[in-house]
């Protein structure tokens, strides 16, 4: 049984359908990437999980139980459009967010101190939010999301607004939270970060799931049977086994070959090894970015037909 089980969720607005029967299973303790172009329905789905919006059809089950309004205390949500009360003091603000999630005052204060220590914000505790730099405000926002140690965390574009150093710190914190048992749903456009942190992904496009599975599986499914070969020799194509591809513009020393239909990697490599002096080879898997663009584009063509 998945920790978070979204079953056939439908959401309609006047004039358009935001989610047309979306299902998704998120296992406990994993980082799950929710991907998709703008307007695919990611934010709507996240808001339904957060019970900000109500689904027209379908169910959301958390830890084996159908979700109710009380379950929102088990979620920490960092929306894409986020902000803070500018006039509130940093410490008070974090405590307020914690208490809204059902913490007692004492717990919230203790947790707030632990986190601002961890993010080196101690000296800012009694400053107003508006006095902080943008990066520091983002840290306060993050603390406000995780202060109540929720078992389910939902981050919508968490890295936007962070510089690389702070983004790295944030990534470390997110991984640490996962290691402590939190389940993390992660919505982003940033495909590099998906490859770095996500184990599972679901790609939404036009209100529907178009791709789902572990990052490894998805890559395997989308591989083009391309091998990068390193050799000082000049390879001549063998039509039975492979064709030559134009070299990668970045890695010019590599020769890229595309295997012919039905040809196994080891057969091609054996043949190459007999005829050329190979110094290395590696299968080229598509990046998530390429898969994303390819899937979304092919859908667009389908839709136009």
């Amino acid at each position, binding site marked *: 049984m998945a920790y978070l089980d979204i079953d056939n969720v439908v959401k309609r607005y006047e004039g358009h359908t935001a989610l047309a029967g979306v299902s998704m299973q998120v296992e406990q303790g994993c980082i799950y990437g929710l991907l998709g172009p703008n307007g695919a329905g990611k934010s709507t789905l996240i808001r339904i999980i957060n019970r900000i919006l109500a689904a027209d059809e379908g169910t959301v089950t958390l830890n084996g139980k159908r979700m109710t*309004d009380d379950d*929102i205390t088990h979620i920490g949500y960092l*929306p894409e459009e986020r902000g*803070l*009360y500018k006039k509130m003091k940093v410490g008070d603000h974090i405590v307020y967010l914690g208490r*809204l999630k059902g913490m007692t005052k004492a717990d919230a204060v203790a947790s707030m101190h632990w986190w601002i220590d961890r993010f080196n914000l101690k000296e800012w505790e009694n400053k107003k939010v508006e006095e902080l730099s943008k990066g520091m405000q983002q840290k306060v926002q993050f603390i406000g999301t995780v202060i109540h140690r929720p078992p389910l965390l939902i981050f919508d574009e968490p890295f936007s607004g962070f510089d690389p150093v702070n983004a790295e710190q944030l990534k470390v914190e997110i991984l640490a939270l996962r290691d402590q048992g939190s389940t993390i749903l992660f919505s982003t456009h940033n495909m590099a970060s998906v490859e770095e942190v996500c184990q599972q992904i679901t790609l939404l496009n036009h209100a529907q799931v178009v791709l789902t599975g572990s990052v490894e599986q998805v890559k395997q499914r989308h591989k083009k049977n391309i091998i990068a070969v390193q050799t000082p020799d000049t390879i001549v194509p063998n039509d039975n086994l492979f064709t030559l591809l134009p070299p990668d513009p970045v890695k010019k020393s590599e020769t890229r070959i595309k295997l012919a239909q039905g040809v196994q990697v080891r057969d091609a490599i054996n043949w190459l090894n007999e005829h050329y002096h190979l110094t290395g080879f590696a299968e080229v898997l598509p990046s998530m970015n390429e898969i994303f663009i390819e899937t979304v584009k092919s859908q667009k063509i389908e839709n136009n037909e």
Partner: protein
Amino acid sequence: MNKLRLIIAREYMSIVGRKSFIFLTLGMPLLFILIMAVPIGLAYLNDKGSDTQQIAVIDETGRYAAALKSDDMYNFVAIKGDTVTNAREFYDKANGSLDAIIIIPRDVDSTGMVDIFSEEAITPALVSNVRSVLADTIETAHLTAMGIPNIQEMVEQAHVDVDVRSIKWSEAGDEQESSTDAAMGLGLMLSILTYMFVLMYGAMIMNSVIEEKTNRIVEVVVSSCRPFQLMLGKIIGVGLVGLTQMLIWIVLLVIVAMVAGSAFGIGQVSPDAVSPESLRMAKDAGAMEMIMRETLSINYTPIIVGFILYFIGGYLLYSSLFAGLGSAVDQPSDSSQFMTPVMLIMIVAFYAGMACMENPSGPTAVWCSIIPFTSPVVMMIRLPFGVPFWQLALSLGLLFGTALAITWLAARIYRRGILHYGKKASFGDLFKWMS
């Protein structure tokens, strides 16, 4: 409930903790005091600063000059034997040491005319002083001249002031003394209070909603509580801010009244205050007493209960309207398209209230005090005059029913509005969101 309390507390503190709130709360009464005190203070300084005026009194009758008593401001000097023809000469001879000359002509008893000459402007205070003193003195002289013993006492006994009491029969047939002036004043005051409160704090709620939206904090908050809780928390929080502000003002008012009361009280006791002026004030005090009696004769219980109910109902109605409309807007500058219709309704309510003062039982007054959007203002005007029970019940029932309905609709708009960014919402969108 716990969350609602948290939201209320945050909303309350976020406004009360602001410097602008403290300035406004303490500044408003100060401003009022200044507006009222500055002219009085300046007038006082004006009198205090000027020297005692030397005034010559040429009394051709020789009987009345002594009645004019000198004091700090005027020094009356009786001049005997001179006549009108050389008044100017006399003035010039005094070489500037005289400020004015009063001439009481020989035929003053029949004409009642007295002249004051001066090169400078003659103050109204001097004129009224001379007028009242001489009128009393000459009147007494006339009475005495009639030669009837004890005439003075007889006149005093015959003197009558007519008060008109207005007495209202209740349906049970009891008589109840009602007083139009005091009732009107009270009704007007309560009505303006309701109006101001709803307007001021309604706008405050709207700003608070828009601020949360532009801050983009709102999605974080509604992922922890229901949008309705956030809206209700705001309405209650801002309402409590308003009550706090009113309470502070009432306390300040009481303090000022007590301080002022004790200061004037001492002034009245001092013996040198027994002048014609203070005698007239004593007459005014009689009028004051009448107003006091009228004020006390009003039955306050229904008014106070009614005020509280209409206040709550009206505030709930308009504040949820403001909250709902505010949620549809991204920036304060866009709010006017939604504000204008609400303001129009409120202005209509206010004018209806003013119009109803003339005839609190007329058809306009009755209808406007039953229609929910105008009733909080108009009923406050009618209440002190007495309102039939069925009208009160109908009006309150409608007000609270509508207020709850509007709150419910506003919550539906709010739920959608707070997450709506970008394209400006139209009234059509609002209706769609309600459904």
